[in-house]
């Protein structure tokens, strides 16, 4: 089927089977390799993208379901060469090590701070509990997100 989708503000088209995983189509058809595959089963959040502003796992979405919709992937987070405050904070606080979880973590943090700008540290952990990181032990990630939150306040 023909799929039209707005990715990071740009209208894109592809002719493919509607049941394919959005994750595969992003990587194989649109060459957007920032979206990672961890588990392929909805458990790890490495494949997180924003669909109409909602945080979703692209491994559990059939690409036909995003026809006519808009997506944000990690490639759309920075503004040109300027990183998003959350991305910069993840670097500054050591919240990214091997980097597999990082695109999903950054997008989920963006969603969480937009949804609940005043969320407590505990609440942020809860909102981001679908993003598993094997390297950092989470503290550095949480510190980074809290600092981005404080930066946004001031």
């Amino acid at each position, binding site marked *: 089927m023909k799929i039209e989708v707005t990715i990071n503000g740009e209208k894109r088209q592809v002719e493919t089977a*509607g*049941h394919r*995983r959005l994750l595969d189509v992003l990587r194989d058809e649109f060459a957007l390799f920032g979206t990672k595959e961890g588990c392929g089963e*909805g458990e790890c959040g490495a494949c997180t993208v924003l669909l109409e502003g*909602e945080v979703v*796992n692209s491994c*559990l*979405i*059939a690409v*036909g379901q995003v026809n006519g919709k808009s997506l944000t992937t990690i490639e759309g987070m920075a503004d040109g060469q300027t990183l998003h405050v959350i991305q910069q904070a993840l670097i500054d606080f050591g919240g990214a090590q091997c980097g597999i979880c990082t695109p999903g973590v950054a997008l989920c943090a963006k969603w969480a701070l937009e949804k609940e700008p005043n969320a407590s540290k505990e609440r942020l952990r809860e909102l981001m509990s679908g993003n598993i990181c094997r390297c950092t032990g989470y503290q550095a990630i949480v510190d980074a997100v809290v600092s981005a939150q404080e930066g946004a306040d001031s």
Partner: protein
Amino acid sequence: MSDFLQPRSLAQALEERAAHLEYQLLAGGTDLLVASKDRLPLLGMIDLMSVSELSGIEEVAGGGLRIGATTSYSKILDSEAIATRFALLHKACREIGAAQIQARGTLGGNIATSSPVGDSLPALMALDAQLELASTRGKRTVPYREFLRGYRKVDMAEDELIVAILLPAQPEGAFHYWRKVGTRRAQSISKLMIAAVGSVQDGKIASAKISLGAVADRTIRLYEVEKAIVGQKPGPETAAIAKEVVRASITPIDDLRSNAEYRLSTAENLVARFVLGLASTVGTTQSPSSAKKNK
């Protein structure tokens, strides 16, 4: 080449379902796309998320609610009406998956999958939910407790869709009790869930609906326990009676996650805590007549 159908109305969805019984119905995909991950390409899919009349929450006459089958957990959690009047469902949905799963997973999908550990199921059963089903042959409404037929078996014909979930009004000021005993809070396969709603009037238990998940091959209601405690004074004595009836009336499954004796004693304790919880609501949920007397 497999087919991906996107009906735009319920009528069209029903037609397409009737014409393609071998296709899979797709809602949020959080069960189906996990299960089909390593399988050969499917014959086809019918995407229910494209049918807007299948989603949304509306008030119905008499203080009830009608929840469209493809309403996501995040929409359910955002609903003030559910949080205040059907707190049991709110509490159950809060613990389903993480944000990504809540954004896509639907109530209809949880019901159709009918896993013995489905989290919304005990809440629906304790709230006396009804399901609205439809096919090109017509519509029907079934009580949720009758819809469950066995291990992952439900009373749904192959050409039918779940259209909506109907929740009847609950007693004013009722006590809604939900606990999930599992290994991890988020994304865990639960070991046991209790969903119960009850009310107290004039110092006696006026109503009690108790449901347990993950103790049997399907979600169950504890009618015998309910019968034993209604009319009694909520408190330790009634809690002790309730425990005995729990032990006499259920035979939990023994599996790797948790053995039968552990499940049985956990079930007893949770039911007892519900009864004690009812005791703590005394004074807050008096009947209109007794409230007047106290003035």
